[in-house]
């Protein structure tokens, strides 16, 4: 969907081939791994078992969307299986992206029960947690490399927590750490100019959005939602607090919850300007309509220092137009029933066609029951998007949805920020445009580093 061709990969699959115009998908599993690769081979039965759990409506792992798409799963051999779709999905890889547990014999079986029941299902892990303290975590490679190797891949990863990003950058420069998973703003420019580091842009930008709790009666008022949208100076907050630079390549104000590079992003949709006078008038209108229902609101924010600072500024601005909004503690729970009214969310959306439904319903999976809290026209839009028969229709539908979401202020998209992974040049073997920080970490090499430059 991005302008670049999006590729999916899995270390467990050698290939997957769609046939019968996408109605059938044949998967071939890798049967052998290199001695240094920390993967436990999966077989068709492991996958079948995982899929069956997702297809069983009574299972806790049940996936309503997969049940709608998958008609049949057939095991052809221990390394080959076929999925026949009852409805051809537009993005089969996107709906089939989930971890598969593999079956291993229980080292301490219960003598009385059958052996198959004793088996354990373990999630795939390339690195296993070995040690954990308040400020650090150490992971070691799940399969050690043979001693006969002439060159060794990364054997352990130690994560260290720093109180601020500046301290983390300082540690990188001093050589305490070799990598920073997410750097943004002016620091990116500084590190790019430094020359000692690889600065790799993440393939998916971070998107920040204000979303409303569907249970909050007060926020069903359209004037109030508009007032909130007009009362945020997004440009200023982005440049002065979050990025601390006005470089447009590093971040921008947006009007949809998915990347601006996505073809479903409707560029004709107008960005809502900052207009405190208009916001004040809208608050007055909302007060008149809501009467006694008008009251204080609670805002939950992602645990990110800069974003929280921006949220504090937003709360102050909203206070100026007569809205009493409390910024809740950063460790507060964010589930729908925990009493918050507005949430400042951060996410990366790769496939809006598939991901927008659960995103809008604030749920993990796309479930029909979660749609009931949405306005009927929006519900219809999401269902139509799901039923779209081709990519062109789906893209058009998503563009329309973008326009309607913006016009009706069903959410307030704030910023899109390009963040970067910074690695010391002693690290090699990493992907050029990673989707996530530890992508292919088992392939990375780390060379010794000696401090120079004094």
């Amino acid at each position, binding site marked *: 969907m991005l302008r670049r061709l999006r590729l999916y990969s899995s270390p467990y699959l050698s290939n997957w081939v769609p046939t019968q115009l996408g109605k059938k998908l044949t998967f071939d599993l890798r049967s052998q791994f290199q001695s240094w690769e920390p993967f436990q081979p999966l077989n068709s039965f492991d996958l079948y078992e995982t899929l069956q759990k997702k297809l069983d409506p009574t299972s806790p792992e049940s996936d*309503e*969307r997969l*049940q*709608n798409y998958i008609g049949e799963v057939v095991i052809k051999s221990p390394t080959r299986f076929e999925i026949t779709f009852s409805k051809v999905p537009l993005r089969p890889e996107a709906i089939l992206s989930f971890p598969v547990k593999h079956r291993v014999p229980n080292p301490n079986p219960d003598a009385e029960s059958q052996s198959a029941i004793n088996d354990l299902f373990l999630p795939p892990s390339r690195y296993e947690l070995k040690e954990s303290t308040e400020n650090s975590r150490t992971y070691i490679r799940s399969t050690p490399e043979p001693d006969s190797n002439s060159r060794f891949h990364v054997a352990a990863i130690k994560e260290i927590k720093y109180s601020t990003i500046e301290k983390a950058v300082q540690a990188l420069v001093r050589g305490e750490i070799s990598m920073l998973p997410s750097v943004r703003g002016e620091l990116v420019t500084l590190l790019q100019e430094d020359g000692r580091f690889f600065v790799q842009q993440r393939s998916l930008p971070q998107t920040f959005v204000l979303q409303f709790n569907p249970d909050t009666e007060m926020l069903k008022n*359209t*004037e109030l939602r*508009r007032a909130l949208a007009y009362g945020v100076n997004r440009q200023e907050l982005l440049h002065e607090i979050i990025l601390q630079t006005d470089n447009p390549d590093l971040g921008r104000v947006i009007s949809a919850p998915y990347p601006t590079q996505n073809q479903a992003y409707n560029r004709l949709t107008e960005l809502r300007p900052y207009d405190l*006078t*208009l916001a*004040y*008038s*809208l608050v007055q*209108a909302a007060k008149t309509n809501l009467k006694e229902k008008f009251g204080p609101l609670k805002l939950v924010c992602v645990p990110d220092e800069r974003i929280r600072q921006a949220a504090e500024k937003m709360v102050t601005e909203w206070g100026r137009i007569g809205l009493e909004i409390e910024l809740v503690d950063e460790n507060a729970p964010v589930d729908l029933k925990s009493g918050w009214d507005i949430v400042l969310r951060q996410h990366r959306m790769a496939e809006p066609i598939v991901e927008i439904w659960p995103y809008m319903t604030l749920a993990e999976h796309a*479930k*029909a*029951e979660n*749609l*009931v809290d949405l*306005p*009927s*026209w*929006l*519900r*219809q*839009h999401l*269902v*139509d998007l*799901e*039923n779209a028969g081709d990519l062109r229709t789906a893209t058009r539908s998503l563009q329309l949805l973008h*326009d*309607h979401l913006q*016009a*009706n*202020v069903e959410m307030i998209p704030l910023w899109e920020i390009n963040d970067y992974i910074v690695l010391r040049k002693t690290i090699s073997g990493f992907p050029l445009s990673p989707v996530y920080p530890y992508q292919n970490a088992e392939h990375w090499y780390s060379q010794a580093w000696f401090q120079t430059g004094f």
Partner: protein
Amino acid sequence: MIHSVLQQVISKTGRLCLPLLLLMVLLSASVEAARDSNLEFDLETYAVNIQVLFQDQSEIPPALRQQVLNRLNQLNESTYGELWKQEVSENKTFLPRTSEALTRTSPEQLKKDFPADTWDKVYLCYVARNGFYFDVFVREWDCVLESFSLVEQEQVFSIDEVPATINSLFVRTFRPLAKVTKLDKTDRKVYLTLRGGEFPTPDASAAQVVSGDVFLPALRYMDKNNQVQKIQFFDWNYFRVEEIDRGRIVCSVISGVQTPIGGRGLRRIEQYGMRIRPLRSSTEIRLSKFNQPNIPLVAHYVSSFLKNSYRDEAIEEPIRYLSNRQGVIDIPLRKEHPVQWLYINSGSALLGRVPVVPGITEHIECPLPDDSTRLEVEGQIEQLKGRIVELIAMRSSIMAEIKVAALKNKWDEVDALLPRLDELDTAEELKGQLNTIRVLPMQEAERLGNKVGARRIDALARKTAPFIDKYLGSKAIESFKDQIEADRASAQKAAEEAAARKAEEEAAARGE
């Protein structure tokens, strides 16, 4: 049927077996008696053919099978007496010899083997050993209305219990027929004549009809030669039994439409009712678009009311169901009140209102009007309303700024701000946009035959138009401008007077 079997017996053996022939002739006579067309419908009995399939197992030898059949015949007679003229036989032709034979047997085959002019009902029974138990399956085929009942199943401990179990399954699956004699549209009553109603069953628990039972209406279309052309059942229409006088029954009509069955010009059309009782604990209902049945209606609320007519008050609070991703809801049977009314909503709009008796079928399709055009319009109108709200707020804020500037006598500022009021969208422009939103979807809804949808779209637009006039009429801006001009004039006048006074004072000071 009997005659064809007779021919087979003669041709295959090459000689006539006299006792067998006599039995055949007797049976033929008894069945033909049931087909006397001159009889009143309530005096007509049922010609019933019972076909029993046994699984190929050594545990059920031929002698034991014959015992089962004989015992079943006796039990039938004690249960239905004169009402049924039955013929019980073992079937050795249906394949596969598993319980699937009951579901895989096609209506075409049954129509050919058991013609409606000879038989009224055919019962397919299957008996199989399953470990320590015996499984018994029964399914009824109605030769007149050419329809199957659901398959009923029981498990018993010994072969001795099999005949009694089959017989009890007959009682459960038996669907008596009645002819519609009169339809009273005013009172929404229908008068039926029950087949064999003048022959009460010896076993009271096997009575054909009891008060509160439900009939499914059906039409049987005949051609000039009195051959069946088409049989039509009516989903979402029921006759509920109110009064029973032997073969004469009075029912109330439960239907979402005005006239479910009957009316004028029904020559060569036979109107029937088939008594049907719930055999399942629930019925799955799939909601779909009537013009695109493959598209399910997802996340639609369905409220179920316990009442017999939509005009009645529900006897308790409605239960709400939500259609899943396949557009399916599962409505459970309420034994104390089998008839339920379902109200299907799309947002605030009522899409459909239908009665249902859960449990009589496993699955029903419920095609409903396509509401997507209206919902699209609703979204666009919401968008327009949002724009209107913003315009009102913008106008108020500009007016407030102008007032403040005017109070401070900053007329240059006032002159700079006033044109901004004219830049805002006018009420006429917004009405034009509203019309654009309304017209095309209305035409589309009418083209699809969805008149209700078209009316709803029109109503949505009509509700919004006064909103535009009320808050964005040009009069408000004109009167505001007039007031500002008046303020400006009075301010100028005051300034001129002040200047004149000042000049006079200065002149006086100079002693002129």
